[in-house]
């Protein structure tokens, strides 16, 4: 008996020794490195896409992958993100009717042609209450869509009423509830991509797995190891495959910014993923690298004011004047963001007409003027609760603002909340204890309407308790104004109502976002991220390292 026990101990020690040897050798060998060449790159997607079903995807990671494995009706290209033909070779807008003409050579990876019927079925599927799609509201500008989405009975009949019709195999007609000048741009959103009906019907919710999915874009989904990697391969039969240089795009999912930078420096990835950003504490060092890349983003970082709690407009103006945007950007955010000059971000078509260049949104703080305005306030609110969410960076900015507002005699209590709780407290209406809240808005489509319609009286995104009927009237008018120049004028008037000399200041915009990442020099010239944070992999060409813009 005793003998067997000591034998067992011997075995244990043996295993221990073996483990030790294993660990030591682990530290010694291995040379699995090597620069990818010949059309193979490794990107960092940043995180697991919550869904690769175009009807269900809502986030940027999903849309970045979807845009490269699917073929949109049209793409947004150039500086102003002009709609350019994709699967639709042309389109025509006639009042509230939009007609798309599809190319004849679009096909699915299983060989089926892509038809207008595919679009009709896919769009109605996304609108249907059964799918319960978050982004069904993207379609609410189409006749009958909102009704169908909220139907309780006779749903099939209501589906037939939705204004999306495949006139024939290559003609798709859409009836809108009103003239929506931005609808054509909006169609570039992933929600409007078609899905392959037989595949969806066969596999149900598992149709997006790599083994099942049928796509129709330049790349195919080769591997999807959840939360680990998504690899794409070029689909040689895509209609324009001859123009696609990349053969393969391997994709990791590294959410930690520091790890992504380390993986880049170790040569494991060719870009760090623009969405996760770079760790601010490393930015001063990384900015000096030739691989550093910075692109503007269609997004605004702002503080919203609960105007019920801070009713005096002069106090809101003073609070905005006291904020030193330049200092926040240079010392905290550090990614060369642009100081906000209004709510509509820089890069938006018509920006120069729209932005109010408000005197209340100075680049560097105007404390004198702020104090002067503050002294005119009848009942100044000197105890302010500022609510922020717990993502990195917000606290540092809040602390800086706390310091800046102290000069106005305002005592700020910062309340940091976890995301879901934070969203609940925003409302609308905002929690009574919230005086000021942090938020950001990232554009879905390229028209200032996407930003400015947030602030109508009954908007589900207006968390300020502020309501100005004149503003609402302007939004309505802009919705009916198809001519861009005229509409931009109206947008400019809305911005004036908020930030002009007599503006209401329910918001205190701080900066317009940028995206920063590291990109291997061989792809840096062509690995472009557009204003909606999307990357078109069909345009990426590998050059020789060090030689940009091949």
């Amino acid at each position, binding site marked *: 008996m005793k003998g067997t026990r000591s034998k067992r101990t011997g075995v244990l020690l043996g295993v221990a020794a073996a483990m030790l040897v294993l660990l030591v050798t682990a530290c010694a*060998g291995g040379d699995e490195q090597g620069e990818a060449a010949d059309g193979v790159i490794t990107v960092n997607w940043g995180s697991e896409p919550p*869904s690769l079903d175009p009807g269900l995807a809502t986030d940027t990671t999903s849309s970045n992958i979807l845009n490269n494995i699917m073929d949109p009706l049209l793409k947004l290209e150039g500086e102003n993100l002009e709609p350019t033909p994709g699967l639709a070779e042309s389109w025509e807008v006639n009042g509230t009717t939009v007609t798309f003409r599809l190319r004849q050579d679009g096909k699915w990876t299983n060989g089926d042609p892509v038809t207008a019927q595919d679009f009709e079925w896919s769009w109605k599927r996304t609108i249907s*209450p059964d799918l*319960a799609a978050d982004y069904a509201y993207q379609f609410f500008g189409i006749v009958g869509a909102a009704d169908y989405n909220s139907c309780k009975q006779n749903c099939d009949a209501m589906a037939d009423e939705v204004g999306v019709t495949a006139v024939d195999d290559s003609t798709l007609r859409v009836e809108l509830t009103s003239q929506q000048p931005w609808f054509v741009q909006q169609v570039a959103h992933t929600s409007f991509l078609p899905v392959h009906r037989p595949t969806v019907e066969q596999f149900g919710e598992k*149709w997006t797995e790599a083994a099942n999915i049928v796509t129709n874009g330049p790349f195919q989904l080769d591997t999807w190891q959840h939360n*680990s990697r998504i690899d794409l391969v070029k689909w040689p039969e895509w209609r324009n495959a001859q123009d696609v240089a990349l053969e393969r795009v391997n994709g*990791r999912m590294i959410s930690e910014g*520091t790890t992504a930078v380390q993986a880049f420096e170790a040569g494991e990835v060719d870009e760090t993923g623009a969405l996760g950003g770079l760790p601010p504490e490393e930015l001063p060092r990384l900015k000096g690298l030739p691989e550093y890349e910075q692109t503007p983003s269609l997004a605004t970082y702002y503080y919203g004011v609960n105007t019920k709690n801070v009713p005096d407009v002069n106090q809101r103006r003073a609070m905005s004047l006291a904020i030193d945007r330049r200092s926040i950007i240079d010392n905290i955010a550090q990614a060369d963001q642009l100081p906000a000059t209004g709510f509509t971000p820089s890069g938006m078509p018509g920006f120069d007409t729209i932005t109010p260049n408000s005197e209340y949104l100075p680049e560097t703080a105007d404390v004198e003027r702020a104090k002067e305005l503050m002294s005119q306030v009848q009942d100044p609110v000197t105890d302010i609760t500022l609510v922020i969410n717990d993502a990195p960076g917000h606290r540092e900015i809040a602390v800086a603002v706390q310091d800046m507002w102290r000069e106005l005699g305002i005592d700020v209590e910062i309340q940091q909340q976890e995301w879901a709780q934070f969203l609940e*407290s925003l409302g609308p209406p905002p929690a009574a204890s919230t005086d000021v809240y942090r938020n950001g808005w990232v554009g879905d489509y390229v028209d200032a309407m996407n930003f400015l319609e947030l602030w109508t009286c009954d908007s589900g995104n207006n968390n300020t308790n502020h309501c100005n009927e004149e503003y609402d009237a302007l939004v309505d008018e802009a919705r009916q104004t198809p001519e861009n120049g005229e509409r931009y004028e109206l947008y400019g008037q809305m911005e004036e109502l908020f930030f002009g000399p007599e503006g209401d200041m329910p918001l205190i915009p701080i900066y317009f976002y940028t995206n920063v990442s590291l990109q291997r020099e061989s792809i840096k010239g062509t690995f472009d991220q557009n204003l909606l944070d999307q990357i078109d992999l069909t345009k990426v060409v590998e050059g020789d390292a060090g030689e940009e813009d091949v």
Partner: protein
Amino acid sequence: MTGFILRRLLWTIPVILLVILFTFVLMRQIEGNPFRRSERSVPESIQQNLERKYGLDRPWYVQYAKVVKGVFTFDLGPSLVLRNRDVNDIVRTHFPPSLELGALAMTFALVFGIPLGMLSALKANTIFDYSAMFISNVGFAVPSFLVSTLLIYFFALQWGEWTGLPTSGWDSWESKVLPTIALGLGPMAYFARLTRGTMLETLQQDYIRTARAKGLRWRRVVVVHTLRNSLIPVVTAAGPILGFLITGSFIVEQIFAIPGIGAYYVTAVTARDYSVVMGLTVLLALVVIIANLVVDILYGVLDPRTRDARA
């Protein structure tokens, strides 16, 4: 022994029922809407469609009954957030890496911690003892995210050409080395200190003196009489620590981009993904229950008196 194990397994059922109840109540108590993921508001009709689809429009007792049934039939249904995946699929895909990482880290901790503690005790108050205990103090005190970052910086980046270790991932055995060390270092230090302490105490015992007096070889005295009796506190600690290593490796998983269950757990709580939170909580409760059961069985092996006491 079989009776003991059976009884313990039966006790698991009420424990799990309590776990379900607490999780259900707590998750519904904290604010938050599983269907609002971004700053964008969710239109009323869409919110209703989602609630109907996932049964959140039903009374709470119906939802609760559905959850209990789901747990006991091993089918907790779809994730509310990852729209194409269900809880079973998440557990099947992501529990194995966490289990593997936990087991590797535990092995690392035991294999290095116990001998380190033993040697320290045998060479108590020598320079070896002091340096071993200094190392283990540092290993215990430094948080795993710092250890992880430092390991990546030195072993994957600075000396990466020589070591061949990647910075992150979980698809080759090389990629598993650094996370194992990062996660196992703390428990290793703990085991070393624990072993050293109890071993020093055991060495003072009369029976050790007897063993030595009757002329047993020193090696035998140490391995059979001292170590064996010193291991009981280590085994006691090992159960919960194993549970912790399997379930609590979130930070290490995140830093090394390991597709484990930790990331899902944390994001599911943040996103109020009720079904995933429930599934993972029950799973992790089971892990802890099993780890503790194994500890109790090991007690019996190490110290027959405890076995007799509960027979």
